[in-house]
């Protein structure tokens, strides 16, 4: 094993967003791995995994003085890997707070990392940053433009955070910067915009439109994050599941009732439901039901060494909890 960092007494990792699904799964994997001696879990509340080598430090990235605080903390702990995962999984009506957390919070994190210069910086992002656009090719590679969405603050905050990280990477060549863009994560325990959307009995269908969709299973996603922390690969990576399916086939597999409606009706209806806070998906999400936003995972396969284990159909069945392999989400991986 190329255990170079082990010579200085094991690796020290700091994780922001430790209470997110991916953060928690990462903590659990780092706890089991003897190569890591100390893990700092940074969040506003303590994750359930605290104990052993995992230490919880309360840190609110929306506070204006957090960058100095974080830099001191990182300096004292002598961290060598920083995992930035403090991003929202659901769109929220508190858009200003979300902006403070994702965009400004990333700025604070990068300020602290610029002072400390850890060996490795891993960021959690999403393939939504490519945006659903009629001009998208069937498979978006990592060098595709990050279009975001013209009126989705949920997506655009992530795009801005990614731009900051890209600038940080060019200004600090000594730091290995790795960005993981996850396809929508589906699974029995994870909770995000897509799992809430697909948990409802009815789902809107844009009349005459049926884009291909792509998901990644939660265990595959967690495995990819752990892999990214331990590897030396740099640059952006699309973390995707095996295969694609048309949106209406996804609904049919889930047993949801598709409600076809014209675009203009759907826009007004979603706008109304979003304004009254009845549903959690903003009107801009409808574009993802109209156009393709499917990413290509070959770079993750070739450079990072990650390839998904579960097909999209298995992922959907596992999300429903009706697969015969119910409870089989604890996938034993030979390499981690």
């Amino acid at each position, binding site marked *: 094993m190329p255990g170079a960092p082990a010579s200085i007494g094991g690796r020290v990792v700091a994780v922001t967003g430790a209470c997110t699904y991916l953060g928690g799964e990462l903590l659990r994997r780092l706890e089991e791995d003897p190569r890591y001696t100390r893990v700092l879990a940074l969040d506003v509340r303590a994750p359930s995994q605290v104990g052993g080598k995992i230490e919880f430090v309360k840190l609110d990235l929306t506070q204006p003085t957090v960058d100095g605080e974080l830099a001191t903390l990182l300096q004292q702990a002598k961290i060598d890997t920083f995992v930035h995962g403090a991003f929202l999984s659901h769109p929220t009506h508190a858009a200003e707070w979300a902006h403070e957390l994702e965009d400004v919070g990333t700025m604070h994190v990068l300020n602290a990392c610029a002072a400390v210069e850890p060996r490795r910086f891993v960021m959690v992002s999403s393939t939504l940053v490519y945006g659903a656009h*009629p*001009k998208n*090719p*069937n*498979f978006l*590679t990592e060098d595709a433009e990050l279009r975001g969405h013209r009126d989705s603050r949920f997506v655009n905050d992530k795009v801005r955070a990614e731009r900051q990280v890209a600038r940080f990477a060019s200004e600090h060549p000594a730091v290995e910067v790795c960005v993981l863009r996850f396809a929508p994560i589906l699974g*029995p*325990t*994870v*909770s995000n915009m897509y*799992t809430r959307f697909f*948990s*409802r*009995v009815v789902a809107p269908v844009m*009349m*005459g*439109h*049926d884009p*291909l969709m792509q998901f990644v299973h939660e265990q595959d996603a967690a495995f990819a994050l752990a892999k990214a922390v331990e590897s030396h690969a740099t640059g952006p990576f699309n973390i995707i599941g095996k*295969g*694609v*399916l*048309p949106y*209406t*086939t996804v*609904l*049919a*597999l889930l*047993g949801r009732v598709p409600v076809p409606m014209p675009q203009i009706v759907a826009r007004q209806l979603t706008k109304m439901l979003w304004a009254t806070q009845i549903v959690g998906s903003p009107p801009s999400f409808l574009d993802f039901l109209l156009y393709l936003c499917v990413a290509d995972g070959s770079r993750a396969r070739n450079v990072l060494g990650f390839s998904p*284990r*579960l*097909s*999209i*159909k*298995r992922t959907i069945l596992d999300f*429903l*909890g*009706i697969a*015969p*392999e*119910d*409870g*089989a989400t604890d*996938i034993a991986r030979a390499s981690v």
Partner: protein
Amino acid sequence: MPDDEDPIIGDGEEDWFGEADPRVPDGRGWADSTARDLDFLGSEFEPPSDPGYTPASLDDAALRELERRVEHNRTPAFPIDLRKRLPLEAVWRRWRALAMWGRSDVVDDFGRDPRATARWEWLFEFLYSRWFRVEATGLENIPDRGRALLVANHAGTLPYDSAMVMHAVRRDHPARRDVRPLVEDTVFHLPWLGPIMNRIGGVRADPANAERLLEKDELVAVFPEGEKGMG
């Protein structure tokens, strides 16, 4: 392990919409579904070979606690919970089977659905042999395998000719190859027509898509005239 086959690594090809699939609850024996739900623990919970061992840890209270913990870790989703309480599984299963009619649960990377293609076959056959009475010549120039690019011009208002090329190769070529036509943007985003074209093999005309198709050794058809040829 009783069998070496990991149930999760399946290729997702098997049809689980069968009439009597014992793995899927059918609503009849829903009362003892709790016991079935815990079946997956079987292999890990083999009792030790010690003769003095009594399975005291698997009494009702422990099982209920285990089940509560399994349920607790799930995303609380209203319809799923409701289905667990009511014997609606049979209805739900029928509904899903009905919704999957005419579509397959595995499509290729670009969205070609074999079952949807078969659904439209009769129409193409009618247009090909009865309506247009197409005569295809030079099919022997198309290789049996490997990448190839078919270049043609459009003839007519609607792109029937690409459908006829597809059908001719699938019908009369010895290798029965599937042609992947590159479809112009405006047609591809037409409501209903676009998704149908995508399901039967059409791909949006984009250099990245064409490159990827050729790398996969597909037979790609392009109509460089584009929109102009459609009158």
